[in-house]
């Protein structure tokens, strides 16, 4: 192997500054802060704009809402389970284990199946103890929760993609995992806001966004995480 090639590669590396581990840590911390701030900000704005009183003030097209007070233990239990699943999803998607190539395809596929199922089963099973939550709400089919989920998850998804940067293997699958993770984080926020546990509502407003975000993550992952020859 030629010395000229060696010198050329070393010179090219020296000419291009690259962040050290400490710099990457700072950048990832900033990205995580951006993710949290954007998610919380979107949630607060949406919840304020879409509050019942606001909708009624807009013109009365919205049917009078049913009032449902969830007991604190139900909110806490549902949120705790959702937080645990969301934390697992983020760990699975952003963590790479002990390999620079990230999680194996099998782990990512298991995550794609288990995260939505776990969230759904947990919410429904917690709410089963609270009969009213399972009552049908015709005026709330779930489109607002769908919009809120997507809005809240957008910032975290972009931040997660920025944190992950590149992956030499399975960029689409890794992107989908990031989408599921962002969706799981959004689920926690939406779940705090939405008392409805009627299964068709949950499927449309809470579960569907997970798959929409996973699809978006897969597309973005293929485009952004994949290595390109310059």
């Amino acid at each position: 192997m030629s010395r000229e090639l060696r010198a050329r590669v070393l010179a090219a590396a020296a000419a291009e500054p690259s962040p050290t581990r400490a710099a990457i840590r700072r950048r990832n911390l900033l990205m995580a802060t951006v993710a949290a701030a954007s998610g919380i900000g979107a949630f607060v704005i949406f919840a304020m704009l879409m509050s019942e009183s606001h909708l009624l003030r807009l013109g009365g097209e919205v049917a009078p809402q049913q009032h449902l007070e969830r007991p604190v233990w139900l909110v806490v239990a549902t949120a705790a389970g959702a937080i645990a699943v969301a934390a697992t999803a983020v760990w699975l998607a952003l963590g790479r284990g002990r390999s620079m190539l990230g999680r194996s395809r099998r782990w990512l596929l298991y995550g794609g199946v288990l995260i939505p199922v776990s969230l759904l089963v947990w919410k429904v099973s917690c709410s089963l103890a609270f009969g009213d939550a399972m009552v049908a709400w015709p005026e709330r089919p779930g489109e607002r929760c769908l919009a809120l989920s997507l809005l809240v998850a957008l910032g975290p998804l972009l931040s997660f993609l920025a944190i992950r940067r590149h992956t030499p293997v399975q960029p689409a699958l890794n992107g989908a995992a990031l989408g599921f993770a962002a969706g799981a984080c959004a689920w926690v926020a939406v779940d705090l806001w939405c008392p409805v546990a009627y299964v068709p509502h949950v499927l449309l407003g809470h579960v569907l966004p997970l798959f929409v975000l996973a699809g978006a993550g897969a597309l973005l992952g293929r485009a952004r995480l994949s290595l390109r020859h310059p």
Partner: protein
Amino acid sequence: MERYARGDEAAFAELYDAIAPRLLGFLRKATRDASAAEDLMQQTLLHMHRARGSFIPGAPVLPWAFAIARRLLTDQARRRRVERRLFSEAPADSDRMTYEPMATTAAADDLVHALSLGRRLQERIEALPELQRTAYQLLQQEGLSLKKAAEALGTSVTAVKLRAHRAYVALRAVLREAREPS
């Protein structure tokens, strides 16, 4: 790599010396083009340089390097629309025949036979589907373990075994044909 991730700039030269020869060998076999292989190796090392801050302490470096090289190779081939030529066709240049088994002791007929067999095996390797050929190269030519090859290819050990097995079956068929009297 660990020292380099922590900011020791001088460690990059050591990293280069440790992995560049194997990377270049792998890329030369895959591209059969010395300048393209050098370019891809440079890009692979530069990518590792850019990603040094995200290096996981204790993570194996070689599968990572091979995975990057393979991805860049595939991307380059796709973009130039010459993947078929790169991976399927067998160019007529004779410099691919880099070894001459028994050349010093065999009789002329044996030598001709060995050269012919070597050429046919090489052609068969190049005609293998890309996944099978890469698995074969990583295991047999680069000497990676099944686990490391699986990591580099982003798949399971079982899948690598299956791909390599299919490659072996194809190569054994060439050897069987060669043994049969013509």
